């Protein structure tokens, strides 16, 4: 290979800076003392300062982020470990908090020595807003999907469908206890036939709900334990203790009638 043409090298450098400046998201480099040595135009405009002024500061002085000065700082981690690191963070510029995601990497000289760090920053305001919206929506869905049905005098049925997480389980517990109180029910049937995955967390919630209902003087029957769910529970090693379980809601309802001394007869 022939020696590099000095003009081309200069052009390359010029082009590199131009490219960095036109990347529509902040890119910056700091030395080992976190003094800013480069900030592209997107970064300058985010901070509202010219480059000449920015390079007089340490990054923490301008960014005021939640990670600044803590072990969470990915720039510091990247310089220490030599590996790239990404995280969510929140910067504070002129009293305005902006959620960001940033990726930091070590800045190396030609010999490969770490002489500082580089990072790029992505404004994730809209992503955070969308996530918030999604959370609210799933919450709404949860609330409307936890009905407690007063099926018969003294019998409440709670059909559980879909995915049960701890928030949903809390919802179920509240709905159930309120309904028991309201209707003075003696038996509650939790039908879990439609639960997508009966895992150890769900089982733990079921056990807790059963205990709480017992304290209110109410029996809890769990129906919808299909052979598949039964096998899964056994493999997981879960002991449902003295909780009465049935394969179908029909069976549990039959038990409930019996416990309350009802008799269902065909009249003709």
């Amino acid at each position, binding site marked *: 290979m022939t020696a590099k043409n000095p003009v081309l090298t200069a052009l390359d450098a010029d082009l590199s800076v131009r490219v960095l400046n036109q990347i529509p998201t902040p890119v910056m480099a700091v030395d080992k003392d976190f003094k800013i040595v480069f900030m592209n135009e997107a970064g300058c405009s985010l901070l509202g300062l010219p480059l000449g002024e920015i390079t007089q500061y340490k990054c923490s002085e301008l960014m005021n982020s939640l990670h600044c000065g803590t072990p969470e700082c990915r720039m510091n981690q990247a310089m220490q470990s030599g590996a790239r690191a990404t995280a969510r963070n929140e910067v504070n510029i002129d009293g305005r908090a902006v959620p960001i995601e940033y990726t930091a990497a070590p800045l190396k000289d030609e010999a490969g020595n770490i002489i500082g760090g580089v990072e790029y920053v992505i404004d994730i305001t809209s992503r955070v807003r969308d996530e918030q919206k999604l959370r609210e929506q799933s919450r709404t869905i949860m609330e409307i999907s936890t009905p407690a049905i007063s099926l018969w005098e003294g019998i409440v049925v709670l059909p559980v469908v879909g995915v049960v997480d701890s928030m949903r389980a809390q919802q179920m517990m509240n709905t159930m206890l309120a309904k028991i109180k309201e209707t003075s029910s003696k038996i509650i049937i939790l039908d879990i036939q439609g639960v*997508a995955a009966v895992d150890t967390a769900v089982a733990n919630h079921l056990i807790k709900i059963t205990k709480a209902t017992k304290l209110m003087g109410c029996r809890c029957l769990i129906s919808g334990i299909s052979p598949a769910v039964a096998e899964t529970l056994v493999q997981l*090693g879960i002991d449902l203790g003295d909780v009465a379980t049935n394969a179908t809601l029909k069976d549990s309802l039959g038990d409930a009638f019996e416990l309350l001394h009802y008799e269902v007869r065909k009249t003709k």
Partner: protein
Amino acid sequence: MTPAHVSEEVHVELNLSTDNALAITSARRLAGRAGFDEAGQSLIATAVSELATNIIRYGGGGEVVLRLIHEQGEVGQPGRDGVEVVAEDHGPGIRNIERAMQDHFSTGKSLGLGLPGVKRLMDEFFINSKPGVGTLCIARKWRR
């Protein structure tokens, strides 16, 4: 684990507790496409849910990758299809794996049956974890 041919792959990012729902439904669907019956789907979805829950609760977020896999049979023998679950996070890791694999061991005041349960539910199970680096679990279930 012996390498298997991967014909389909689904990635599910896990950060919030609500993300577990997508992992569960994706696992069910993929297991269905692999030919598992309802019981098999329920079992695989449960194993995925355990690993996903751990990533969210203890691993500080991460990812599960669900794969439809095929393994060639011996000469003249038919091969087999299955599902592979790769659960990975770059969280605090597990200091004592042996203890974490024991029934009823939990640092989160829960049942402590997740990891040992997954091992029992699935046909193959692999776990590796390093404090400060993260945790990797790989589990496979073959269709019978």
